[in-house]
């Protein structure tokens, strides 16, 4: 009688990559819900569009590459990419924005580099940056929180705006974005940047209703939602704690230094933490294992670097938010960081590689 031959270890802790991806997708729920509550259906519609596009693209490329489709199509990685793109886009951006962005992310950034595990750049962020660079107009039509919008942005209105550019009643996107006072509203980060450029102090700027009572109306709760999801992932050991912690710490330190030196023209530390895509980037994008550093020391370095870059782009750069750019730059440097942060092997002296 011959027995079944297998290689050791014969046991496994039963974790699977698709499960991990699914867990990350679930962890975005608090943030997505906050987004829906404050900004309406726009992002949910974009998430749906992006996911559908992602599945179609993934299916097409996997068939062309003769890969096991059932195995890889639903491993959750493409859906997660689509989800992140959907979250990042301006809520009222036209439908083709999310379609093109997702196609670029899946086909070019992910699959052309070899698929899951081989892409040097985070597909969602690369797709987002491509859109931002190629379609600056559509990518900056940020919708103010629902409470500040005169038009009733229900599901039907949002859908028609995304598909046709006009609400059911016939209001254009620009009209929707215009406040009761007749000003076109932007994001808090954008507003602050514009105002600082105009010579206004931060204190004067934040009187703008989009800043709300705390730091940034709506945005602060969206960020808080992603923070909760991120902490859940850390508790589940799905992501490494080193990256988000060092990233947030780095951003905090940078903004604290500048705020204490020049409070008039610098936003507060908490404004940096709870506006823009800070928490999403910290817990959901920077922690992407494929494009990040693998060693713990490397993760800390990547986090610190990303925090610094985000701060620099937000204050000195041409774009209001810099999370996407910072993350792409960190993706580029991750292999190098990995190279120099290899841990000391047991029984080897330090520096004895």
């Amino acid at each position: 009688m011959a027995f079944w031959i297998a290689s050791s270890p014969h046991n496994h802790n039963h974790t699977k990559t698709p499960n991990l991806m699914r867990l990350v997708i679930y962890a975005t729920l608090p943030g997505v819900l906050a987004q829906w509550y404050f900004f309406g259906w726009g992002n949910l519609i974009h998430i749906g569009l992006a996911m559908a596009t992602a599945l179609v693209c993934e299916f097409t490329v996997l068939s062309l590459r003769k890969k096991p489709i059932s195995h890889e199509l639903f491993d959750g990685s493409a859906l997660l990419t689509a989800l992140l793109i959907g979250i990042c886009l301006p809520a009222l951006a036209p439908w083709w924005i999310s379609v093109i962005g997702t196609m670029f992310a899946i086909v070019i950034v992910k699959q052309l580099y070899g698929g899951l595990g081989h892409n040097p750049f985070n597909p969602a962020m690369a797709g987002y940056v491509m859109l931002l660079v190629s379609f600056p107009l559509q990518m900056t039509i940020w919708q103010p929180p629902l409470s500040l919008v005169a038009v009733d942005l229900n599901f039907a209105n949002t859908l028609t705006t995304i598909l046709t550019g006009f609400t059911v009643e016939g209001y254009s996107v620009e009209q929707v974005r215009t406040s009761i006072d007749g000003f076109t509203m932007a994001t808090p980060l954008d507003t602050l940047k514009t105002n600082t450029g105009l010579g206004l102090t931060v204190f004067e700027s934040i009187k703008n209703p989009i800043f709300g009572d705390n730091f940034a109306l709506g945005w602060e709760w969206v960020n808080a939602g992603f923070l909760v999801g991120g902490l859940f992932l850390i508790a589940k050991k799905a992501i490494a704690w080193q990256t988000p912690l060092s990233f947030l710490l780095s951003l905090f330190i940078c903004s604290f230094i500048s705020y204490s030196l020049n409070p008039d023209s610098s936003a507060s530390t908490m404004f940096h933490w709870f506006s823009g895509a800070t928490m999403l980037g910290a817990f959901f994008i920077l922690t992407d294992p494929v494009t990040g550093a693998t060693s713990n020391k490397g993760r800390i370095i990547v986090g610190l670097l990303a925090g610094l870059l985000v701060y620099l782009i937000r204050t000195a750069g041409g774009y209001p938010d810099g999370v996407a750019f910072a993350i792409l730059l960190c993706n580029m440097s991750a292999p190098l960081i990995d190279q120099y942060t290899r841990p000391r092997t047991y029984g080897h002296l330090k520096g004895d590689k």
Partner: protein
Amino acid sequence: MVESVVERITRGHFWDFHGGIHPPEQKFLTSSKPIKQLSLPKQLIIPLQQHIGREGDLLVTIGDRVLKGQALTLSTNPMVVPIHAPTSGTISAIKMSVIAHPSGLSQLCIFLDVDGEDTWRKRELCHDIEQLTNHQIIEKIADAGIAGMGGAGFPTHIKVNRQPDINFLIINGAECEPYITADDLLMMEQSNAIVDGIKIIDKLLTPAFILIAIEDNKPKAIKALQQATASIEKIKVCVVPTKYPTGGEKQLIQILTGTEVTSGQLPIHAGIVMQNVATCFAINEAVRHDTPLIRRVVTVTGQALNKPQNVWALLGTPINFLLEQCSVQNIENENQPVIMGGPMMGFSVSSELVPIVKTSNCILVPSKVEMPSAFEKESKEVECIRCGQCSDVCPSQLLPQELQWSAKAKDHAQLKKLNLSDCIDCGACAYVCPSQIPLVHYYRIAKAEIREQQQLDLKAEKAKIRFEARKLRLEKEKIARQEKHKKAAAARKAAMNKATPEATGAKSAVAAALARVKAKKASKAQVDTPDAPADLSTEVVDDQKSQVSAAIARAKAKKQLKAEAATKLSNSSDDTNKAVDVDTVETKTTVTQQPTVDDKKAKIAAAVAKAKAKKLSKNAEVTDTDKVTDNTLADKTVAEKTVNIDDKKAKVAAAIAKAKSKALAKANAKAESLNEEKIAANNVSATVTSNVTPTDHSPSNSAQAIPEDIVVTENAENSDSKNQNESLAESTPTPAMDKKAKIAAAIAKAKAKKKLKEASSVENNDQDSV
């Protein structure tokens, strides 16, 4: 430092090692049942080698009846550990059989048919260890065939041999692998025997401290050993936290002493020796009870068994016997894995006849529910997403994900840089990998490849040294051979010089032919001899043959001179002489330069050539001379014209001229022929001496090539007869060259013949027409 370590230990503080995992222990399956004594199996299959090292020399043959404990192999080397008959019986076969090896390898095994009487050989019990010297104890351990029973199987007698400055003797009872409880049960049931064994090692090694490490999931074993060692100050029972792989040698040393074993070194270099508890038990059995290592505790477990338990298994017991004893449920399942060792580091065995050996501590038969990944036919591996969980759990702090990429790419240099050799195969990385990559499997393949490459490199290096040595030797031999040939040639020359004047022995065909010619000439041209010595004195002729030919030529010249009495030609007669001399000397030297004229072929060729020459000369005599005499002046001018025309013709003409001269000499021929001879000879001398003329040299070249070719073939044949092996290996081209040379020689000869004929006919025609 040692003191502070012990202080820490007595306070119950330990160091930690990087990584580690907590897989389901599943020890409850067997830990509560006592070790079962089994009935004797019908047949035992005892592999000759059950340890790291080499197999011993067989002491028994098929049909021998052996007693329990009788040695079956003999140790002649420290790395050889003998094996013993686990029970009495008859040896029915000694043949290859599948052994406990991950690859299902076969090895020489002794098949012992058990007689059921279990008769012991005579034993000498030792009641007082103090009476034994250390050397005697080590000898007893070596004779008992004890090899490390924790898994590696390193010969124990080497490890317990006295080493200076041992700080710690660590007794490994951690047993961190899930499922296995063999050491646990042994510690519970045989704590005193284990402690006695530890005392024996203590006597041998005299370490500063003895630490018994047990994971905290074995409370009963801890209690038993604490009681057994209560009175001994030197021994400390260390209760270490449960974590896999705590029982790894390097990891346990780090936990207990906080020091790392330097990569590539052994713990002994750090003053630490580690022994497994089962080894300690075996040492006690061997030294006190004269019982060799013939049985061990084996955990037979897994949810596919109805009665998982620990058993005392005789070495050589086939695992199907053990499985029967533990009521296996559904072994018919063709995918059923049977694992020897634990779930983390064990290997699945390929046959039910695989025997228990000294290092087998567990037979695991899992059900599909408890260990689905062991049943999977195809790996569920997906792409690595660099999550880094593997490096988080690696106890050696390696980067498994990077190792995996390099292993797949067969980048051995990078693998070395990433310290693949420090991987202990614990399997923690593969256990946690969410992409289900069989990481350890990749590392094993890579390690095997690197090992193979190293062996190949070593082999290539050896081959290179061998080749160079051989080249040197061949070179020397060649020089020696040439030296020998030179000597032989000289000897032959001397012999020939002696033989020629006698003209009777005719040792060589050449000599004989020359002798004949000489005799002829001598008889016909006796008149001219007085002049010859004078000429001889001026010519530097070292050869009898050339002397002869020179004499002939001179004689001819003289005769012609006299007969002709033409003044304008008299100047050139000297030239003719010289040229002929040079010619003959040259041909002679080309032959004699080669140290191998004595070859048969050469002889034959020479003889044939001579014969041809003769024949041709006769023909020439018939055809040429008459006509030539008729056309004296015209002939002369024609010949003068052709002087610089053609080497071919010149060569041919030389031959003809020689032949003619013979005839002319015979008949005291006319001035025309002398003239012609002179011209031709001039030409020959020009080609022979200078070879500068850019005209076609082919016939002369080929004519010259012939003797060389002959030499080549002859060389090859010589070496053939001398040393066939050598020449066969030496150069395959030689035989080919040999053949070619022969063919070329033949062709050249044929051509020369043809050319000669043609030339003569042409010349005749020319002369006729003129």
